[in-house]
């Protein structure tokens, strides 16, 4: 069994990698990349060579390629040679301005050095000659540029993505040479209950800590890097976007580290457990508040995170669906061709055949006009009421599908020999249905339970759109509209892992529920 599970997991990881690779090809190679400039005002304003260089910068930002400008190479070279005063040196100025002289350009030693260095790394070079008027004056945006660029292949892209997927913070993370005291140790936590694992030299100050928020123990040590958003959530890591709380700030009386031991308190929403190292210059105000360079923080917010919002709605809908759908399906099978069965079938047909968009709007219209429930999530005065319509819209189709399959499997079981035998033994109809038939019919449905629970984490596209729910359902569609390639890859990775985990968990649950089923090849009756 262990061997089987190990093989299954290995195979799943392989498929996951291939899916991510396929999506990377789709996103980075097949979609024409210049579409990102369609709505870009800066691109429109730029012209000539400036526009070409701007394109390189944007392509790098969106993750298409990596590029190096010759100018920055020259600067780095002379910073190393002369230190801070490099820009006054004559040989620096000569090397820097050589780009503007197309005829003498190739004979320059630094240019040759640049070409040699990046040639070895597999870069390709493009020289943008200065564009001038006849008078010799440079046209707007016509300055010369020399650029080395590197187009990532799918394998490098995939390799780097996988390598950077999980990062662990270490004491060497902060590159500041002035920081000498580097450690990870357990200290008393002034902001939460008891003790915390505190790091110095790590990016976050508090690595593991306790507080009053669910799930009470939190960590900043391990990070999951699904992908970075370029447009929708500028520069943010998508896993932190979907899991950080939203909504109104919670303020309470807190003390900055310099206030410890005094009676001084300020009212603020600062989350001191989120402190990260400030590598930039520290302001005087920050010096007055903090005793070290961990001065960057985020705020405590009252609302649920995007992921939690989707999950809460999804899981309530799923619980309702199982609680209503299974008994309804059993009832329909027991009273086959009676009124209840006919009504149930009508409902199933309605749910199966009518476009989901249509009945979601139908529920929205009924809910808002007859029961005066809030329609848009953001406009709800009582937050709980805003959940009702989305939950109903998600639950009703699930109920329909569960009813359909439960009824089907129950009816299939009803003609089995063991049912006839049980009847011959003198069991009451109630016992037969409850103990024998429904349990055997459930075998087919058990496999789907982990999937329907984990599926709540992906959110619901239409429901969340119609009711304006701030969940994760529209992450992918929004990213597609805005060419947010990092988010597209992140979403695919997230969805695929969830679906693969659900299938494996479903099979395990199935084997647990029905001991006759053996997953590994040795036992059981499978071919």
């Amino acid at each position, binding site marked *: 069994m262990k061997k089987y599970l190990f093989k299954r997991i290995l195979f799943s990881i392989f498929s996951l990698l291939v899916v991510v690779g396929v*999506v990377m090809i789709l*996103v980075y190679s097949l979609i024409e990349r210049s579409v990102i400039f369609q709505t870009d005002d800066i691109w429109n304003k730029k012209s000539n060579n400036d526009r070409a260089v701007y394109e390189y910068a944007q392509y790098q930002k969106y993750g298409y390629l990596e590029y190096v400008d010759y100018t920055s190479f020259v600067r780095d070279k002379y910073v190393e040679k002369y230190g801070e005063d490099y820009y006054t040196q004559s040989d620096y100025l000569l090397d820097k301005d050589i780009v503007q002289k197309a005829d003498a350009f190739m004979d320059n030693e630094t240019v040759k050095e640049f070409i040699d260095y990046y040639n070895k790394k597999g870069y390709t070079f493009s020289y943008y000659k200065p564009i001038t008027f006849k008078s010799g004056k440079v046209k707007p945006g016509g300055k010369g540029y020399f650029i080395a660029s590197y187009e990532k292949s799918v394998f490098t892209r995939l390799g780097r993505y996988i390598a950077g997927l999980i990062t662990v913070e270490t004491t060497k993370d902060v590159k500041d040479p002035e920081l000498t005291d580097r450690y990870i140790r357990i200290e008393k936590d002034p902001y939460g209950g008891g003790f915390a694992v505190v790091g110095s030299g790590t990016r976050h100050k508090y690595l593991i800590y306790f507080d009053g928020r669910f799930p009470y123990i939190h960590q900043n040590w391990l990070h999951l890097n699904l992908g970075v958003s370029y447009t929708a959530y500028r520069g943010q890591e998508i896993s932190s976007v979907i899991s950080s709380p939203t909504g109104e700030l919670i303020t309470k009386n807190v003390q900055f580290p310099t206030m410890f031991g005094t009676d001084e308190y300020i009212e603020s929403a600062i989350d001191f457990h989120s402190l990260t190292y400030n590598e930039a210059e520290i302001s005087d105000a920050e010096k007055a508040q903090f005793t070290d360079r961990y001065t960057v923080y985020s705020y405590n917010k009252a609302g649920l995170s995007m992921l939690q919002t989707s999950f809460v709605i999804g899981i309530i809908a799923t619980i309702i669906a199982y609680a209503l759908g299974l008994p309804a399906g059993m009832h329909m099978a027991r009273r086959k061709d009676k009124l209840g069965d006919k009504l149930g079938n009508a409902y199933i*047909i309605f749910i199966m055949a*009518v*476009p989901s*968009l249509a009945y979601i*709007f139908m529920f929205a219209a009924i809910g*808002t006009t007859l029961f005066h429930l809030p329609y848009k999530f953001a406009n709800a005065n009582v937050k709980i009421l805003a959940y009702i319509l989305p939950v109903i819209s998600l639950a009703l189709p699930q109920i329909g599908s569960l009813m359909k399959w439960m009824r089907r499997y129950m009816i299939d079981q009803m003609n089995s020999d063991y049912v006839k035998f049980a009847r011959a033994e003198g069991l009451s109809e109630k016992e037969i249905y409850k103990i024998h038939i429904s349990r055997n019919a459930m075998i087919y449905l058990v496999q789907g339970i982990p999937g329907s629970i984990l599926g709540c984490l992906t959110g619901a596209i239409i429901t969340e759109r119609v009711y304006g729910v701030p969940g994760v359902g529209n992450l992918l569609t929004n990213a597609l509209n805005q060419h947010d390639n990092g988010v597209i890859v992140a979403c695919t990775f997230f*969805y*695929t892992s969830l679906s693969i985990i659900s299938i494996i968990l479903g099979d395990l649950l199935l084997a647990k529920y029905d001991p006759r089923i053996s997953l590994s090849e040795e036992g059981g009756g499978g071919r």
Partner: protein
Amino acid sequence: MTNNEAFENVNEEELFRFLREDEKVSSEKIVAPRYSYWKSVFRVFFKKKSNIFMLVVLVLLLLSAFICPLFMPYDMMENITNPATYNLSPAAAMKYFGGFSFKWMLGSGGMGNSIFYGIFSSARTSLMLAFICAAINMFLGIVLGAVWGYSKKVDAVMLVIYNIVANVPLILLVTVIVYIIGTGFWSLIFSLCVTGWLGIAFFFRTQVMIIRDREYSLASRCLGTPLPRIITKNILPFLTSVIVTILATELPSYISMEVYLSFLGLGLSAELPSLGRMISLAQSAFLIYPWEFWPPVFFASVLTILLYLLGQKLADASDPRTHMM
């Protein structure tokens, strides 16, 4: 006793006689009532009055979707320059355009377009999309699914492909295809078909695997029947009702799919009227201008329900077990 007494007075000549030459052949045959599969299917199907009623309604709807646009030319842009015609309720629209007319009996849309005319033109696009996609996907899915289910070597390869392709999000695929070959009727068909057949093939594979290992199939293989013949003669006829069941769910699903993709802004191009586009254009203000929203929703729902129900009934009828009198 009575039998013997009855025969005693009869001579042998009357009990037995020699057959004439032409009588010999037919008497050698075992006579059974004539059974034609498809005749029985339709006999069972048309026995129910409700089926006939639904079929008539569906045919009327189909005819109206394909014929009405010929007489009621729909032009989304005809009143685009006249904002006074935008979003008029049925009563207001008929008043504005001078008395009762079929064209304005359902009011006007956000661009002064006629909702009533729009529905038929839109339904034609949606139906054509559904029929073409269903035909392509069903054909590919069933042929490849049969091979997939029959051959264990193909199964190993296809399972890997299925696991990968089934996990690429459909909206991502549609977006990429739209970027590569542009929006339009055929590009949408292409994106719905490029992976759409896999799901059908996977479902069909499981059905084929169940039949594959039945005794008569094994016997046929032992006698050296070639693979294509086993698939077409031994397996496919057994699965006719399964095929019709798939058809019953597939056809309406493409109409729903088009509505869904249009809602996300990924559907057909703007100049092509479709039910999905009508619904998604009207959805933002469906409480204020209900006459723009509900007619296409109602038409799409009736179409999908009828297609689904009739498909289910046909599937029931195509199961030979229901053919017993």
